């Protein structure tokens, strides 16, 4: 499977700015534009509609829609509408979501994620296929639900996770798997193994399942500023208690509990101070352009067929990141 390069937004920046950067990234050669659905920040689906209208060929992928709070019917409508506006250029990524954020939105215990995601994927596919859907799901029930229109081209469904069960499910049923951002190379390899088990179990050809991975990315001339920028992002990521194994995989002591509490209190800068600088490049790509290219290649070598990076920071840092995309995609 050919390597593609994607870029992603985390929703922290004003949407007008992200729309402009999305267009620049496509011009630089990015194949896909992923918008993270961080609860409380800029919303992914409407942002992706804007990206789709502002670009010409890149696929847009809201990431990740959470089956515990997004009803499948309006979700199917939303993505079919987007796909009609930009045929063949819309995907979706489904995942359990962040446990802290889900709790704040009234989902204290996201139960049976494998079943819930499987039901969600089945419901979306059936609705997009124009079927009348009856499904007594664990979270949602559909009783004769039907879309009155079909997306003109298929909408690929990715599943994101770091857990073995959900990654196995992704291997069995999804069009793609998305590895979360901030994973160490060791964690990436572990995730790929879990997905491969699902692929083998379902007797699927591995090429049917695209393996994409969010890669936290920051680039600066001196390299140091890039490392500092990624500290903050890693701190936000580590608000999730499920990151414990990933953190342990690099063997650097990090006070995970304290980070969770500080992020919960919206003290992101203080949380960032708890990430040792030497840990940053264990979980992210950060440094000078040359260092970034080298670190990016390491993720590809670890099995990420589509690294999905960020174009962030100040104007100079964004320009450097776009340059990395240009060089990476040149000559294809």
């Amino acid at each position, binding site marked *: 499977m050919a390597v593609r390069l994607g870029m992603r937004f985390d929703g922290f920046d004003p949407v*007008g700015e992200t729309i402009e950067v999305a267009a620049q990234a496509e011009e630089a050669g990015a194949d896909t534009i992923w918008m993270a659905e961080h609860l409380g920040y800029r919303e992914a689906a409407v942002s992706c509609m804007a990206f789709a*209208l*502002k670009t010409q060929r890149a696929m847009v992928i809201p990431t990740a829609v959470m089956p515990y709070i997004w009803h499948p019917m309006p979700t199917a*409508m939303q993505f079919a509408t987007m796909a009609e506006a930009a045929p063949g250029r819309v995907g979706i990524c489904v995942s359990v979501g962040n446990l802290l954020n889900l709790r*704040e939105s009234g989902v204290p215990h996201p139960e049976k994620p494998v079943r819930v995601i499987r039901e969600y994927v089945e419901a979306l596919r059936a609705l997009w296929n124009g079927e009348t859907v009856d499904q007594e799901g664990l979270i*949602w029930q559909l009783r004769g639900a*039907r879309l009155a229109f079909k997306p003109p081209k298929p909408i690929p469904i990715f599943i994101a996770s770091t857990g073995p069960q959900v990654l196995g499910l992704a291997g069995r049923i999804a069009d793609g798997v998305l590895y979360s951002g901030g994973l160490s190379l060791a964690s990436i390899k572990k995730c790929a193994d879990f997905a491969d088990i699902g692929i083998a179990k379902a007797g699927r050809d591995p090429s049917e399942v695209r393996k994409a991975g969010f890669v936290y990315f920051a680039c600066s001339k001196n390299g140091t500023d890039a490392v500092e920028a990624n500290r903050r992002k890693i701190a936000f990521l580590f608000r999730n208690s499920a990151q414990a194994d990933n953190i342990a995989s690099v063997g650097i002591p990090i006070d995970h509990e304290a980070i969770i509490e500080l992020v919960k209190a919206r003290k992101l800068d203080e949380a960032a101070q708890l990430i040792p600088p030497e840990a940053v490049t264990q979980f992210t790509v950060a440094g000078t352009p040359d260092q970034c290219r080298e670190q990016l290649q390491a993720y590809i070598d670890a099995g990420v067929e589509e690294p999905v990076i960020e174009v962030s920071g100040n104007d100079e840092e964004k320009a450097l990141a776009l340059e990395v995309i240009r060089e990476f995609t040149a000559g294809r």
Partner: protein
Amino acid sequence: MPKIGIRFDGFEDAPETFRVAALAEKAGATGLWMTEHIGYRESLVSCMAFAMKTKNAMVIPAAVTPYLFHPTPTAMSLATMAEAFPGRVGVSVAIGNTLDLKESGKEPKDAVQAVEDYVRDLRAMWTAEAVESETEAYNLAGVRMSFKTDKAIPIYVTALGSEVASKAGEVADGMLMSAGFSVPFVENCLKRFREGAAQAGRDVSVLRTAAFIHFSVSEDGHSAREDVRRKLAFLFRNRLMAENIASSGIPIDQDAIVDAVAARDLKKAATLVPDEAIEAFGVAGTVADCKKSLEAYVATGLDEPVIQVAGDEAAKTLALQVIREFTG
């Protein structure tokens, strides 16, 4: 200049609606409303596209239901749009069509309360304070937005009858009257809306009112009336329209219409809408007929009649002409 909005029902493909939205703004339309018909094109992403394709018009998804749209992503969606297009984004909230909700596994118990809860919680989330709420449709346990918009997002409540009109006056920034209301029924709902606002001690002069009006125009007037007949059939599938239908005194077999629409047999449903209902519940005819009928709606004190620019290209051109003539 009088305000006039246009609305889309989600029946046409998305690129066509974007094209028409841009043309309507050029003709003078001040509001672009996208109906959330379950199963058809979705309103939030459509409104983002409308905003991108236009310069000044307000975009308003209508109506978002608390039973299918969790307030966290909904507040995020609307705030994202409002950040990109300050002062140009609103939302209308309603319980939704009961048949559609049932197909999506939802059977509301206390619809009016659910709408009130949703309005309160969306507003609270947009302050970026932590929000706690326990409702029939969802719970919130400290959820908080991490960004705020510079300009407020007005929340309309969609009224399908006088009870909700009164509640809209109490709690919302505006009232959107559902399509298919007759002029006398619009007057009644406006009265109840103002009474609700007064009882809550609110300044009614800053509140907004709009009404979806089933609209079609043609050179001869006849095909326009047939078009509105079909739209009314789809509308009358909603049990909550019973009060409006009854107030007209016109005998309409609503049960049979509900059954036909449930079977996706819109043609059969349309045959159940009598001729006199088209005149009573819609605006249909020639350009001159339509302009006159619209003026009757505005004479009730309504701020913004909301019509459709639909049908074939000739019908759309005529509808745009009505907008141009209406806005002078």
